[in-house]
């Protein structure tokens, strides 16, 4: 019996050494912040166009590739960031022009599959231009760590947390206080009503894709600074999907809290149960958690709409 309890409680037992436990918690939460940053982009596009953008993960990779590429060419960092933002905006225009406007009124599942195609195209396109080797991305985030109360914390993790907080605040102001933000919310509520009061849907789509491209750039910069820019970035970014399921598709706070739960949960599970079953359970833990969660609460923690029961 004792052994079974030891196994079940393994994620809790790591707190026997509370410093180690806290380190796991902090690194989990900060991985969660990274997931949240990716998930934010999903939520923005989903709210504005009802499109489930599978390519968001690749958008993160693409943004990071561009930034790392420009810096690699010797362009000063602020200019490189501006250039990348320019590319993301250009990308939004192109996507609207070539894809979105042709898929109006299609079923959601068709839109979803189109974004899978976009994801494939974009990742290969980025790597064709910038090469597929692992790139270092150094935008001046301080390296190293400090140790309050004997807990090791990376500066990078702190920076990521601060950036995420700033980004969410910025987005909240953008959505609530600006005219464009109001238009975005109107579109999210009801496409037809928004059209009838004179909001241009196409402009809105471009804006929303551009904004989520910039969010992707922020996420990509953080991930890239942490583990280098490489193809696996897009696979890590797939973890934003379970985050969304947990948090609800339409909710920005949901994306943040869902990300924290997933990040924390998978770190604790990995450290606690990993050794018993051969490790690497981080690969699937988030998905299984989301799947179980779906069965009990399909709309997520903060989702507004009740998903059609079938």
């Amino acid at each position, binding site marked *: 019996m004792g052994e079974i309890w030891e196994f079940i409680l393994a994620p809790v037992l790591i707190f026997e050494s509370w410093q180690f436990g806290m380190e796991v918690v902090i690194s989990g939460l900060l991985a969660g912040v990274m997931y949240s940053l990716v998930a934010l982009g999903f939520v923005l596009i989903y709210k504005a166009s009802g499109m489930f953008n599978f390519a968001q993960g690749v958008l993160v990779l693409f943004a990071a590739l561009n930034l790392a590429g420009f810096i690699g060419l010797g362009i000063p960092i602020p200019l490189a960031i501006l250039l990348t933002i320019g590319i993301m905006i250009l990308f939004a225009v192109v996507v609207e022009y070539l894809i979105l406007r042709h898929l109006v009124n299609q079923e959601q599942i068709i839109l979803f599959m189109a974004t899978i*195609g976009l994801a494939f195209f974009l990742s290969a396109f980025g790597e064709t231009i910038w090469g597929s080797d692992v790139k270092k991305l150094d935008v001046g985030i301080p390296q190293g760590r400090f140790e309050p109360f004997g807990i090791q914390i990376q500066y990078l993790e702190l920076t990521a947390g601060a950036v995420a907080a700033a980004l969410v605040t910025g987005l909240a102001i953008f959505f609530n206080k600006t005219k464009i933000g109001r238009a975005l919310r109107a579109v999210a509520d009801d496409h037809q009503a928004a059209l009838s009061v004179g909001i241009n849907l196409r402009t809105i789509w471009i804006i929303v894709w551009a904004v989520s491209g910039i969010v992707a750039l922020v996420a990509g910069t953080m991930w890239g600074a942490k583990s280098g820019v490489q193809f696996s970035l897009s696979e890590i970014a797939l973890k934003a999907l379970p985050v969304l399921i947990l948090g609800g598709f339409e909710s920005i706070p949901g994306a943040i809290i869902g990300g924290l739960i997933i990040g924390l949960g998978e770190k604790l599970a990995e450290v606690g149960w990993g050794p018993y079953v051969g490790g690497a359970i981080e690969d699937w833990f988030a998905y299984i958690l989301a799947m179980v969660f779906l069965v009990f609460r399909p709309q997520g923690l903060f989702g507004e709409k009740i998903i059609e029961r079938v």
Partner: protein
Amino acid sequence: MFYREAGQFYTSYAKDQGIFQLKQDKFGLWGILFIAFVVVPVGLYLMVQGGLMAASTKDYLYNSIFLLLLVNSMAALGLNILTGYCGQISLGTAAFMGVGAFTAYKFSTGLNYRIQKEDEAGELISQLVPMLPPIDNPILLVLIAGLVTAVVGVIFGLPSLRIKGFYLAVATLAAQFFLVWCFSRVEWLYDYVSSSTIQIPPLKLFGLVVTGSETVMRDGQEVTIYPAAETKYLICLSLVVFFAFVAKNMVRGRIGRAWMAIRDMDIAAQLIGIRPLATKLLAFAVSSFFCGMAGAMSLIFYLGALEGAEAFNINESFAVLFMVIIGGLGSITGSFLGAAFITLIPIFLVVSLPWLGGQFGIPVDAAMVEHIQFMIFGALIIIFLIMEPLGLARLWQIGKERLRQWPFPY
């Protein structure tokens, strides 16, 4: 001119319900089957005998193209049943194929499990003990693999009762990542070898060597017999053709109509008395059955040995999804067209791109070819979804309609 229904009457109900109602279609199908079963093997054999083709070219054609094509067709059939007919999107196809492959492996080696005990010297020795006699019939293995995968598919299909659309897609991603993790971490699955590679043991069918090799005494000499590529090809082809007919008849009967009703409007389907629970789970079961068979075929006939985490990764799932989208959602013909398209394009690019690059003085390496291939696939998916959401199958159908009226459009 030649392709029209004038003068063909249905004089019995059976005729009225035939799959191919036009004589020309029927001839066409028999012609294709004749080419696949007789002309290709005999023709290639004669070409090799006549010195027109090297024996290695023939083996390359069979082992690298035809077999892959057949395996992919089977997988595309499976996914098309689920996504095209029943409307449930799945991103876990490769994982289900993997389940099939590992099932085939375990049954072909007799479901070994390991016991560890101490010998006299006190050293720990481990021993593999079979639970069942090993099965050496490849067709039986493929069928068992299908059945086991069907069970696994139903388990991962359970969330579809509560959710649909891309929510379900995420749930199937869970299957993908979890199962692939199992393929490299659950030692029992690959008989505890450290490389987590599985290799199919020698199998025979009707006395013919299918995998591995066999040494026999002939004229007082030891002769090693290697499996003929034709054998594998014909077995695979028979399996695919047989199950394509099964699928075709399933989707045009009561079951298939129930699937399509659920796909088109689930509430209306419920109102006319279709039980969504049973219907969806059946779709998951049948689809996984096909995918499992495809995986087992891939292990037994195509690859021979494989590493689960690598052979069945998520890109493979996407590839099968692309076959279904490009070929045509909700079309059996489309599954074949899509599989052919997605299988042949990379082979074509690998050959043509370096040549093309050479013409313009641009060096093209393997990574470049792969990137270009991904870009083409991605772009094609978008183009097809915009221009022709029903894929190549629809184009084929339009072509036939046109042909019917040609050359007198009245």
